[in-house]
């Protein structure tokens, strides 16, 4: 593994997201782009569906477990290049940070970052994020970060938000070096990288892969 995407001079940036399908379960997607936004690698998971026992026993820790311990690290491990940073738009995926060596940052959209002026303390995991489908009894929900429903303190992991280019991003307070590392190397990309758009590409690609499997 190299710091650069490959032999070329352009660094790579990773984007991780997880989508939920009511019928099949969770699909994880990890896209590695070069600094010009062109795709270098794409990895996606087969559907991951927790058993009923997992839903009961993991309870509120189910999503951090699935997103952060199972799907996220598995996808990142498949990548052949080490990006400068990995961005995600789903809060529970931040639970993957202890299992990966790459800086992992949560992208907060304008509305997601409402109330996150300066440094905010955000709970990592189950209480944050807007549920597109209401959580009940440990069932999974869409966990795209959204500060319209501000996360509460959860399991001890708190996040620090800061501005990166035109975006608000957050890193785990347990890994404050992530923010420093990314900020240090980001100046050359600040105006070039769209931190929100690639997630749409991943979702489209997951849909494409699912359709092709039918």
């Amino acid at each position, binding site marked *: 593994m190299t710091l650069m995407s490959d032999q070329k001079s352009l660094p790579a940036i990773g984007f991780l997201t997880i989508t939920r399908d009511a019928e099949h379960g969770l699909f994880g997607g990890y896209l590695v782009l070069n600094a010009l936004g062109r*795709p270098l*690698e794409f990895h996606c*998971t087969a559907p991951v569906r927790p058993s009923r026992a997992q839903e009961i026993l993991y309870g509120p820790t189910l999503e951090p477990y699935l997103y952060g311990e199972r799907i996220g690290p*598995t996808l990142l491990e498949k990548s052949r290049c080490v990006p400068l940073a990995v961005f995600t738009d789903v809060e529970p995926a931040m639970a993957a940070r202890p299992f990966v060596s790459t800086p992992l940052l949560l992208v907060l959209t304008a509305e997601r970052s409402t109330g996150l002026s300066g440094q905010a303390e955000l709970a990592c995991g189950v209480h944050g994020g807007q549920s597109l489908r209401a959580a009940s009894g440990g069932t999974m929900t869409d966990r795209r970060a959204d500060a319209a429903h501000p996360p509460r303190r959860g399991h001890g992991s708190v996040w620090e938000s800061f501005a990166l280019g035109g975006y608000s991003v957050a890193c785990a307070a347990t890994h404050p070096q992530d923010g420093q590392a990314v900020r240090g190397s980001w100046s050359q990309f600040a105006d070039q*990288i769209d931190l929100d*758009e690639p997630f749409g590409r991943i979702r*489209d*690609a997951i849909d*494409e892969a699912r359709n*092709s499997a039918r």
Partner: protein
Amino acid sequence: MPVAPHDPSDDQAIGGAASPHAAPAAIPAFSLDLSWDVRCFATGWITALQRDTKVSVTSWPIDAAAPRAVSVRISRAPVMVRSYTFPELPGWNQQGPAQGVPPGTGGSSASRAGGGLSGSPSTGSALAPVVGVGARPAEPVHSTRLQPPRDIVKLRDRLYYVLQPPLETLVSASQLRFPFQPFPYQYQGVAFLYPRYAAILADEMGLGKTMQAITAARLLLRSGEIRSALLICPKPLVSNWKRELALWAPELPVAVIEGDQSRRRWQWQQMHTPLKIANYELLLRDADVFRGKQLHFDLVMLDEAQRIKNRSSTTSQVVRSISRTRSWALTGTPIENSQEDLVAIFDFLMPGYLNSSMRARRIGRAASDYVLRRTKDLVLTDLPPKLYRDAELDLTSEQWEAYRTAEEQGVVHLSDLGEALTIQHVFELVLRLKQICNFDPATGISSKLERLEADLEEVVASGKKAIVFSQLVKSLEVIRQRFERFRPLEYHGKIPSGKRDAIIEQFRDDRSRHVLLMSYGAGSVGLNLQFCGYVFLFDRWWNPAVEDQAINRAHRIGASGPVTVTRMLTLGTIEERIHQVLEEKRQLFHAVFSETECPTNLGLTQQDIFGLFNLQVPAAARRAA
């Protein structure tokens, strides 16, 4: 002394405790004789009392199941992952020329991309410096994503396109500049062409097909996905393409195939120039170059692709013989006469994919993923309107007399020909009658000319510019002679091609030149005359598509105001009959591209042409057809 046996009931009576609530009774006194007879005998009880007490234990088992533990196994089955890698094409990492307008920076409609003459390339240089499209913009920008065509089956190939950044980002990241800000629909056109190996861009004239094709080819060349491209266009349009390429892809080396045979042969073999331009006429002379498939192009673009609508023509055969990977066709009129035209173009794109026996609706469905057609009404809501005026005129008495005579004599002549009658004879009569509809041959009197004169006076007085189209060069020459006071310019087949560009420039730049007389054949395609406010169709062409092309020389992107189109038609004449046929052709076009059912062929068939004079098609002519 006898002792009475003890009666327990007496105790109770003595105790008086029969009822705890009874009042204590007086104890009665009586005498008792204790002289009882006592006899002793051994019972053994005393001994027994001295022995230790024996304790015996009896156990009964309690029948209860022992608690059982149930283990729930939480599986950690591995998460299955599918991985795809894509090549990082070094061409994208190169910086483009720093001129023009970066995409995504907005731009007024006045500076939007059009046909190419709507502004100066330097217009954009004063605009803001490049801002990466990827950055969060101050103003919302359109995001145009590439979509894989249906005929790409492999998931990896499909994902390659799905995962590409929006077109605006691609362009911006590569530092490609545009002289004008493209319209969103033009980005969509580029996104349509880019991933396709077979495509027809069939936008209505004036929507910028040239720009879209150039940009798509430019992106493919920059990305390294293609290395060689060939553009084939009509000869009069070569200079227009050169101009447009210089505008939209200034960094792209272009070679125009021209000169004598040896020079051309040498040019064909030069593969270091990524884009070659050849004209159809020249292609026929160099047909042998393509034999053997040694000369291969990654992309072949056909401009005015209706030129190959006749599959048996040499032009079509030569074009189809070119070895190529991608095939694009540009035409505003994929159907001119019948659906056979579209089938012929598809024979170039995907041989055998369509055939003539298919119904219009089925052809429409099959072609839908390969054809992109937009009309101005659909995409250019801010384009000035196109106003039609149908000038339905009566012939002057002199014209009527000449017309009736010519028609009667002509029809008699055609009837007399019998089996020797050919379609050429009919065409000659049509032409003769159309000439009379324009002018009386003896006196030169013309109802059309009178009307045109009045209109042109108004045009000139208002300082506007007008184009007058005619099928007949001779008619244009008559008009020029009659309207010398307007100092009209001419652009038709008798004008040498080397002088034509200068005429267009003079018409555009010289404020004293208000009228351009133009033939359909020479001026209906490829020219950008959006500074004209008036178009006159002095007579009608055989095909509505050609008329539309002519009209859209003026009504296109960059038009500063409404374009008024005056269609001249003499009532009760051959012109009116032809007009009815043209309307039917419009219906056919609509049938294929709106998936509505319609008869399969409404073109000007042999029978239609003979039918203009109520003639039956002779057997010999039928056999020849």
